């Protein structure tokens, strides 16, 4: 899978009109400088050869060097990857409990005012473009009330607290875009379960509501819930580009966009592979968790 993706991305980016050298040197560069750079980067070689060259490196744990800066890719990516994961993690910490609370609440009180309000609010939130949410949050909470910093620049050696402080607004922005989807799916999954006979049985055993939901319903709705949470986590990681741009946060998404426009293949490749790898990893985690939560799969007969 990863191999196919890497090949696909490599040749797709390679076939894009536009020229690495021009992209790196900018529009003012002289023809001669461009030619020089092309030679230096080995762009005179056919793409297939370069791909295999690259693939061989990767197999030996070497992702190559960035065409633009000459820095090793692994080094260029690692701290940005950490940043992106941190932001996505914070987004998840905000959105997952919120989505769970809203989803459980509206499944329990189906058709109630709470249910309706939650669904309208989250739908409204989902339909707001991210950059709009981001600008609005900045205008209010950073500029008007001055509670949070308007951009997420980090000091050279940021402490945990530093990070949290600057990332609150970006994380909320991210949460906006995923809470609705998660909440709706959680609600649907729970409603399926709540209607099942064993939930009625629990009620007939005199089990109080809280315990019914938490102990009886949730574990059985876990598979679809985990699935949607994981999908959205993947989205949080991959979908942060816009948020990173607006909040000036040095993450991987930003790097990926920059590298695509610079045709910096090793960087694009590595970033795409990381994204795809994370996606696959998360999917696997979802599968594993689904098994862990389902005794039928855990203890096959």
């Amino acid at each position, binding site marked *: 899978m990863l191999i196919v993706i890497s090949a696909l991305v490599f040749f797709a980016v390679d076939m894009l009109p*536009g020229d690495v050298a021009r992209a790196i040197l900018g529009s003012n560069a*002289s023809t001669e*400088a461009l030619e*020089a750079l092309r030679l230096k980067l080995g762009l005179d070689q056919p793409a297939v050869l370069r791909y295999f060259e690259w693939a061989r490196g990767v197999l030996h744990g070497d992702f190559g060097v960035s065409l633009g800066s000459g820095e090793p890719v692994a080094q260029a990516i690692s701290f940005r990857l950490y940043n992106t994961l941190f932001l996505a993690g914070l987004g998840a910490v905000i959105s997952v409990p919120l989505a769970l609370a809203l989803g459980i609440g509206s499944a329990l009180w189906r058709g109630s005012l709470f249910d309706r309000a939650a669904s309208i609010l989250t739908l409204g939130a989902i339909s707001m473009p991210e950059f709009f949410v981001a600008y609005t949050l900045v205008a209010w909470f950073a500029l008007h009330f001055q509670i949070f910093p308007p951009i997420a620049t980090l000091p050279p050696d940021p402490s945990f607290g530093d990070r949290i402080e600057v990332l609150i607004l970006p994380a909320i922005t991210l949460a906006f875009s995923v809470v609705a989807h998660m909440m709706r799916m959680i609600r649907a999954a729970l409603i399926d379960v709540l209607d099942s006979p064993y939930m009625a049985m629990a009620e007939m055993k005199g089990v109080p509501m809280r315990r019914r939901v938490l102990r009886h319903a949730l574990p059985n709705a876990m598979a679809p819930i985990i699935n949607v949470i994981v999908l959205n986590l993947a989205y949080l990681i991959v979908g942060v580009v816009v948020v990173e741009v*607006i909040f000036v946060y040095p993450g991987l998404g930003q790097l990926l966009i920059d590298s695509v*426009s*610079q045709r910096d293949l090793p960087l694009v490749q590595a970033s795409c592979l990381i994204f795809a790898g994370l996606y696959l990893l998360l999917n696997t985690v979802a599968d594993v968790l689904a098994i862990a939560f389902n005794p039928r799969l855990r203890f096959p007969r």
Partner: protein
Amino acid sequence: AEPKQGGTFRLGIGDFSPTDTMDVTSNDTKFYNIAQLCARNCLIEIAPDGSLIPELAESWGSDDTAKVWTFKLRSGVTFHSGKTLDAQDVVFTLGRHLEKGTTSGIKPFLEDVETFEAAGPLEVKITLKNANVDFPAILATPNAVIVADGNRDPKDGNGTGPYILENWQPGVSASFKKNPNYWKEGRAHFDAVELIGIADPSARTSALIGGKIDAYNQVDLKTVKLLKAAPTVNILSVSSKAHYCFPMMMDMDPFTNQAVVDAMRYGINRQDMVDRILNGYGTVGNDQPINASYRYFNADLPQREYDPEKAKSLLKKAGMDHLAVTLNVSEVPFSGATDAAVLYKEHAKAAGIDIDVKRVPDDSYWDKIWTHVPLCATRWSGRLTEDIMIGGVYTTSAANAGWNETAMKDPQLDELVIKGRSELNEDKRRQMYYDMQEIIRDRGSNNIFAFANFTDATTKKVATPEKLGNDRELDSMRAPERWWFA
């Protein structure tokens, strides 16, 4: 007022790249430029009035063929590392731009150099193949900063400049602290400087208003009026050489016909462009690339005005009563290009010209669109000298090098450009440049409708000298060295 000392100056910069390094032959972003001028000095500085004043070179001059140039270096200047500056450092540094396989941005301007030589411990001799009266100006650009002999490390920020590099994150930020031994008097007032790359214009604005940065460049002109009204913000605006164009390719239909070209140029309302796209932060253009920011601006040329009727009659002359053209744009050439194109479309409607605005991908704009389609949008940030601006873009040789965006090939213009380079007589030289401007305006096919100002924003805490440099933005990129906190 007497500048105060101290504070950390945080500067938001809207043009940067993950590939920025401290290598002097690295690529040419504004982030890179400012960083270089923080850590290093040039031989020559451009004063706010545009004149060239001594920096690392105390004095310079040429023989009377304008081919051999001598630069006398200042004595006692030390690098951050403690090493003392000498001629060998200069020879090494400048030589790097001519090395084989270099990707230096000023290589084309130094192409005429035959040799760099150390004529003494503090004297450098440069011999040119062809005469160039304007040669010293080249050594005043931020690309021409001087590093210590042998310094090729892209991460090494060692220099003679006002600040010492402490931290460098490509495409993200850089931080500097004050150089306690800085040789220049009355400069470098901050304790520390931080450069932060912020691509999104709105993010730059919020960062400034929110107090995360003290100044930034490239103010979003769309909102500049709103920004100006903010109580904590100062807008700094100086006229510049940067111009906005809709170039037409003379070798592609329908612009093979000069009447059509002129109709297009009478069909644009330049003042409206300046008012709406630049929000007043600029001046109208006159279809030639030289303005009052250059030494030899021909102010006598009549201004081309918006005249739909004239455009119509020109079209009729060309045998058409209706013209439909496609204008390719993206936000790459300048922010607001799409809006400008849409505005142009509205203006041209009155002249019976139907402009179809086509938004093309940002990504391959320079490769696929520019000089490849009859009509697109461009922006030039201007060049050091009239010679480089005109010679580099409007001549036959420029066309061969792929830089001539109108495919203009005019033998008289080509000849004038060559002559202008070696003419030592000031008056004659001026007249030559006046003529060149007239030729481009009347016989060329660029639609240069506006010159933009350099527009920066600072908080009210920041104080600046009365007159700001206008060679580049942010006080000719020397804000960290020249500004202070009030």
